[in-house]
């Protein structure tokens, strides 16, 4: 352990493991440590089920839950956008070969007290009860406009350049509140109404990503890995190891110091030196600031979510203005099941989450919990969200952001690519896929 490394990495969350993989592939000498005995940090998938019960002080699981080993319970609920940046990273690095994915069966949204399927095809759109015929036409026109929109091509703007606020675009097409909710919250996945005043381009890009993703596999834009999200960091850790990265789990970190422009990390009495360090906020309590809280309720069910056509996996979005009392942030439900090898036979896992707004976070989830039917067991956790105080360029300490309340990995990937750029001084380029066989010399 007494060597010098190019990069020391603390914590094996997804962000850290992807960066570790990218750095190792580039030839950097990486030492990657975690204080836990398992991979994944805050975004791990707990296995066996006993670990989940133990973590929340609930004794041991009842026999009805089946074999504990059949469970892999995500602590942070997220799906992958089929055309999103994480999928691009998986393909670029060839980590896809270690994983298997399933398409999430449907995306749903609450509207006037009812759960509606978001139409994924033109045929479904005609049958939806989300809006009336006139509104449907306006909605369709707006979607067609956004599909063609290109920031670089003014002829596609029709009077709304990329910088005008999103409200201007809605006004141009005269769409009502139902279309606005669906486009802004269920499709663009904005978690508040703040986007209305921001430049329209961001929302249009999100709509384009959504439809690009949905066109790949059909019923929803989302993918989910078998055995849970915890497989993702493990896959990238393996990539890093294949390219020479050294992995050490179960390493308590005693000290992190800056010495002569380098970083010294002490674990179990041994000190290693690195030119820089990357890690999750939990390793750097003095260098991060709290920016909010997320409340998540992991619910075990013995049935599919009501009103979702018995989907084995789905997302339900509860837009902030559709719940009572109205709130600032949307509530999300991500549901996966035994079909993804994350739950015992016949069991479902629904994780309900939102950004905390009151002093009683659990009660904030109630409007969504009411739609889940009978809940066999519920585990509620409130997590602080942290961000680094500085960008690390001076200190050579690059800290990732906590996993936010969004239900996909786009913001996580933005953080990853941003740290990559700050570390390397150049933007990450998605080039040709990395070929593991080529590297082994043949």
């Amino acid at each position: 352990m007494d060597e010098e490394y190019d990069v020391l990495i603390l914590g094996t969350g997804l962000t850290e493991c992807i960066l570790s993989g990218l750095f190792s592939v580039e030839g950097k000498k990486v030492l990657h440590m975690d204080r836990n005995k398992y991979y994944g940090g805050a975004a791990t998938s707990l296995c066996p089920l006993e670990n989940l019960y133990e973590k929340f002080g609930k004794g041991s699981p009842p026999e009805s839950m089946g074999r504990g080993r059949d469970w892999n319970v995500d602590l942070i609920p997220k799906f992958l956008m089929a055309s999103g940046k994480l999928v691009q990273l998986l393909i670029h690095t060839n980590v896809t070969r270690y994983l298997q994915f399933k398409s999430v069966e449907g995306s749903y949204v609450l509207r006037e007290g009812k759960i509606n399927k978001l139409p994924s095809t033109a045929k479904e759109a005609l049958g939806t009860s989300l809006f009336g015929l006139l509104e449907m036409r306006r909605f369709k026109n707006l979607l067609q406009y956004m599909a063609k929109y290109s920031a670089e091509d003014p002829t596609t703007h029709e009077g709304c350049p990329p910088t005008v606020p999103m409200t201007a675009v809605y006004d141009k097409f005269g769409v009502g509140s139902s279309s606005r909710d669906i486009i802004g919250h269920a499709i663009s996945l904005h978690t508040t109404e703040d986007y209305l005043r921001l430049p329209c381009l961001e929302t249009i890009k999100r709509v384009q990503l959504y439809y690009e993703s949905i066109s790949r596999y059909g019923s929803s834009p989302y993918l989910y890995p078998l055995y849970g999200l915890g497989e993702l960091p493990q896959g990238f850790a393996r990539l890093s190891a294949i390219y020479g990265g050294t992995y050490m789990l179960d390493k308590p970190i005693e000290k992190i110091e800056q010495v002569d422009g380098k970083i010294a990390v002490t674990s179990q009495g041994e000190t290693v030196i690195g030119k820089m360090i990357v890690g999750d906020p939990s390793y750097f309590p003095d260098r991060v600031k709290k920016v909010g809280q997320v409340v998540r309720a992991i619910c075990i069910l013995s049935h599919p979510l009501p009103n979702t056509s018995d989907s084995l996996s789905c997302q339900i979005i509860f837009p902030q203005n559709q719940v009572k009392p109205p709130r600032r942030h949307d509530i999300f439900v991500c549901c996966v099941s035994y079909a993804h090898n994350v739950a015992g036979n016949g069991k479902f896992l629904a994780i309900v989450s939102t950004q905390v707004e009151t002093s009683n976070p659990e009660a904030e989830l109630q409007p969504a919990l009411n739609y889940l039917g009978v809940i066999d067991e519920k585990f509620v956790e409130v997590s602080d969200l942290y961000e680094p105080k500085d960008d690390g360029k001076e200190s050579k300490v690059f800290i990732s952001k906590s996993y936010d309340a969004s239900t996909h990995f786009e913001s996580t990937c933005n953080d990853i690519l941003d740290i990559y750029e700050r570390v390397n001084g150049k933007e990450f380029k998605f080039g040709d896929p990395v070929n593991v066989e080529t590297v082994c010399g043949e």
Partner: protein
Amino acid sequence: MASRAPQRPNNASPQGKICQFKLVLLGESAVGKSSLVLRFVKGQFHEYQESTIGAAFLTQTVCLQDTTVKFEIWDTAGQERYHSLAPMYYRGAQAAIVVYDITNQDTFARAKTWVKELQRQASPNIVIALAGNKSDLSNKRMVDHDEAAAYSDENGLLFMETSAKTAMHVNDIFLAIAEKLPKNDAGGTAANRPTSGVDITQGGGSNPQGGCCGRSQ
């Protein structure tokens, strides 16, 4: 460094059904895990094989009477060194080769703990083979052949002493595993929960897998 052209481990032409299995290697650092794979897959041996970098996902085919068995071989990529092998590594593995060095008693003790780990972590139906490697160095032998054979018998493991250097028993151990693997529709752990997945490297469209030994979990 000795080298010869890669060839099929046995010369039968492929026929009948093709079954694919995930095979993982386990064992202490420097017992010759990567060398065994390199010998089996490419027919090569490097006296001073570096610690595993790069070669971590290789495939090789073994032809049996009526079946072609395709091994998808996972090497540890050095993650065994500080006990940081991820659960993903064992996931869906239908076969494992646990390797020790016959000139080093400690590696044999360690091999036994890997066998226990597999019995705990992997599928109950996994086919495990124990390989006493470096059999060309029998003048420095520290692990008794009969002791390892008896241990293997007790635990239901296949057992052979191998030499990646001379190629002795290398193909044979893979062949023995191929023969022992179940090749019916329910073969291996993978088919226990048949589902269809998507191939995200392709442009789109669902990609249902299944049938004989398909890795369709």
